[in-house]
């Protein structure tokens, strides 16, 4: 499984990378902002994207809108501190498939990933 991790915090990317490794997924590419992430899309062709919201240069919401307007349907899980219901609705309307509020446990993230991939495959 090819996964793209997008978060401006390297420590947060490391935490997510370890959880993904526990699921046996090691084809992981990292990006520190939305603009870097867009550059990774063509070369990496991810099957899943874990996306932070608050990032410099280009935030997660703008990246998501650009991704969807280009016709890309890769499942995206927002992984963010943005916890208001209005933010979740905004992200889903922009094309997010699922939502995970930081902080999370390894089990919570695994469950969210499995749920997302199952729904996407259906």
């Amino acid at each position, binding site marked *: 499984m090819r996964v793209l991790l997008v978060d401006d*915090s*390297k*420590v947060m990317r490391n935490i997510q990378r370890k959880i993904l490794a526990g699921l046996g997924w090691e084809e992981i590419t990292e990006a520190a902002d939305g603009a870097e992430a867009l550059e990774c899309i063509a070369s990496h062709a991810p099957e899943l994207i874990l996306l932070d919201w*608050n990032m410099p240069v280009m935030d997660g919401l703008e990246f998501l809108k650009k991704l969807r307007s280009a016709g890309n349907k890769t499942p995206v899980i927002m992984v963010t*501190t943005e*916890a*208001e219901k209005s933010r979740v609705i905004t992200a889903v309307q922009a094309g997010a498939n699922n939502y995970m509020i930081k*902080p999370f446990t390894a089990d919570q993230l695994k469950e969210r990933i499995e749920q997302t991939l199952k729904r996407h495959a259906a």
Partner: protein
Amino acid sequence: MRDHAFESEFVAAMHEALSFILASVGVQNVQATATRARTSGDRWNEVTGIITYSGDIAGAVALTAPLATANAMVHALAGEMLSHESEDYTDAFGELVNMICGRTKAALRGENSISVPTVVIGDCTGRAAGLEGPTTVVLCESGLGPFAVEFAIRVRAAGLASSAKGAA
């Protein structure tokens, strides 16, 4: 003018967020021991993480900790000891502040946004922390040692101020 009802609402939300986020990385017993106005004699700690708020409220929050407390907080999140001179250290401390401020924001009414965090190691000033105007200091104790949260936030949306005053 200071909105004291909003300030106490903000302190309560911040305290809940501090306890929740620090507990998620294994830090227990987070207690606010005193809340007061900042005075010119107050010194900053060695590690300070800053986030600004904009929207219905505007201003900044700084979480400032002595090096020993900050080291332990970074260790708790990153799972390893990091040098305070490394980029990963400021990254980890900033992410903790980001999670705390994000959770605080979600508990407040109104539409607000937070900035990405800035972390200052060493001397900090209110100006560097973006704290302008009357600043409130919340002194805290935790299982990892003492730290403080300082904030200067003003309410911009008139409806938010009056509803804060009327809040149960």
